[in-house]
């Protein structure tokens, strides 16, 4: 069926509205279901976790969508390129070199700053070596990312072998995504960063829509391609660092929500896709956590479940894609 432009726009608005309602419902349920004892305390506790989820949701959604736009590829995500595994590696190396006690007692903001610097550096390196001359060899890029990610994991394992078993336990706590142990100062800092970056990105939106058409077309249409890509990638590196530093790696979340948002909204326009993806991410996190806690009585396995579902949905997407 061929829809006209106004019909499409109407459907997009409705889809986004439905998403918003669903997300609100999940959020409300997350805050209120099964409260025992003091409401004040429960709301405060859960409110903080929810805030962390919201920050992560926006950071993951925005970073993934931007990354896919500047690489002109819908299967790439910063996580697939090894960003989050690098994060894990840095944590591990830090514990190895400094000892678990030093790491956990260091000001989380300092730890965070170091993480951001390393990730931005890595992003710049990737950028320099891969976006430099030829822009087309995406498969080299993907493969490189996958290989780097895997290498980081091996290195992490290797280093963690050299770590005292007790310290290793501390490390594991640091690494499994968990919204329960978020530091309040860190949360505030992350929220500010995410808001600032998203606002900055918002000004780039029309240009990003053009960049998504590919480099040549974008240059032909007068977009300063290089500059837009540079800025977008900087934002991506910081956002990924924020999300991973806050709750640890959730590899497939971005892949899942960015593609679902595009699929559901039927457009690639960033003004639609970004809010859609962010809502989906929050829905997945709050809803997922709710289901895990209420149905399975678990509270720290969310990343595993997201990876499981995310992977399945994504394979389905890849397979259905060309038939449209």
């Amino acid at each position, binding site marked *: 069926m061929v829809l006209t432009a106004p019909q499409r726009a109407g459907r997009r608005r409705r889809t986004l509205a439905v998403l918003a309602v669903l997300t609100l419902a999940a959020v409300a349920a997350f805050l209120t279901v099964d409260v025992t004892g003091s409401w004040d305390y429960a709301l405060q506790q859960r409110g903080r976790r929810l805030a962390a989820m919201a920050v992560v949701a926006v950071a993951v959604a925005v970073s993934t969508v931007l990354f896919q736009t500047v690489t002109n590829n819908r*299967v790439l995500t910063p996580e697939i390129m090894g960003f989050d595994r690098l994060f894990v590696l840095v944590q591990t190396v830090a514990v190895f070199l400094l000892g678990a006690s030093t790491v956990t007692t260091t000001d989380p903001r300092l730890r965070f700053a170091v993480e951001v610097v390393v990730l931005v550096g890595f992003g710049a390196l990737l950028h320099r*070596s891969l976006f430099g*001359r*030829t822009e087309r*060899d*995406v*498969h*080299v890029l*993907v*493969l*490189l990312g*996958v*290989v*780097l990610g*895997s*290498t980081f*994991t*091996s*290195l992490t*394992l*290797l280093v963690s*072998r*050299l770590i005292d078993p007790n310290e290793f336990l501390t490390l594991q706590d640091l690494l499994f995504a968990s919204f329960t142990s978020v530091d309040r100062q860190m949360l505030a800092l992350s929220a500010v960063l995410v808001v600032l970056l998203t606002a900055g990105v918002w000004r780039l939106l029309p240009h990003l829509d053009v960049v998504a058409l590919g480099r040549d077309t974008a240059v032909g249409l007068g977009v300063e391609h290089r500059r837009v890509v540079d800025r977008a990638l900087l934002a991506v590196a910081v956002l990924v660092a924020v999300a991973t530093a806050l709750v640890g790696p959730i*590899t*497939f979340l971005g892949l899942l929500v960015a593609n679902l948002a595009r699929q559901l909204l039927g457009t690639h326009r960033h003004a639609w896709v970004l809010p859609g993806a962010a809502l989906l991410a929050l829905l997945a996190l709050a809803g997922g956590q709710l289901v895990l806690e209420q149905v399975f009585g*678990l509270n720290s*396995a969310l990343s*595993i*479940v997201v*990876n*499981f579902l995310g*992977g*399945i949905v*994504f*394979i389905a997407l*890849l*397979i259905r*894609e*060309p*038939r449209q």
Partner: protein
Amino acid sequence: MTTTTDRRDGAAPPRVRRRRGVQRWHVTAALAALVLAAAASLFVGVGDLTPADVLDLDEAQARVLWASRVPRLLAILLAGSAMAVAGLVMMHLTRNRFVSPQTAGTTEWVGLGIVVATLWAGGTSVFGKMVVGVVFALVGTALFVWLLQRLVLTDVVVVPLVGILLGGVVSAATTFLAYRHDLLQTVDVWMNGDFSGVLAGRYELLWLVLAATVVAYLWADRFSVAGMGEGFAVNLGLPYTRVVMLGLAIASVVTAVVVVSVGSIPFLGLVVPNLVTLAMGDNLRRVLPVTALTGAAFVLVCDVLARTIRHPYEVPVGMVGGVVGGVLFVWLLLRARRRVA
């Protein structure tokens, strides 16, 4: 731009010559080096054993040599060569350079199999785990192939990506199961390639992979033809589906046996075939023996590193292999890219 392709065609002869540069004496030299390295590796370890001792072994030294060192060396050679060949065969049959047991989810399926066997099949014996592992590997590879057939977009990246994602899903399931049943560490130990547990009486099932490798060699030409695509294969009168199935089954069985016996060595099945075919071209019959040798050498070197890096302690070879293989592969990719650019 057509100019560059034309010019490059013009520049082709020297490259062809370079490819022929891998000559018989290279292979012979590599083989000799491997034999030397293998012999040397027998004398690396905590127990005291020097080459001079071999002529006059006392009882303890004989025990170390025959119960530990020799089995370990054999396990390394068997696992290394077989995994590399499995990767090569898979790469050919799926017609994609980046498909290997490690990028098709096969390894992860074996991991799931091991956990399932431990939990519900009472599979405490290695043999039990292996049977379940083989079944899971076959099912997993079949699922991957089934997905590929559904995939209209058989892009060179999308295919391994589907495999990697599939592996991710399976390993998430494995992690979840292990997490619920407090088996995370066991899984880690099982999945990480490690030869330190190899002793006489506990690795012999690995000989199975030698049989699989020999079969792969005997069928090399068929796999070559099948690798040219269904149209080619049918035109040449080859039962395409059967050949592909057999080849993938060989790769799956090899993967399962190796992972269950000694754990996974990341990149082995991906890096080694890619390196070898890059140097020698794609003629399977010619490349396969060299791939097997290179695979064995790769694992041998990694194992020696793993044994010496923190002497007297050992680091699992899987981690060393993951780092070495990863770095090697990144270098390879960037180099290949620079040459094209």
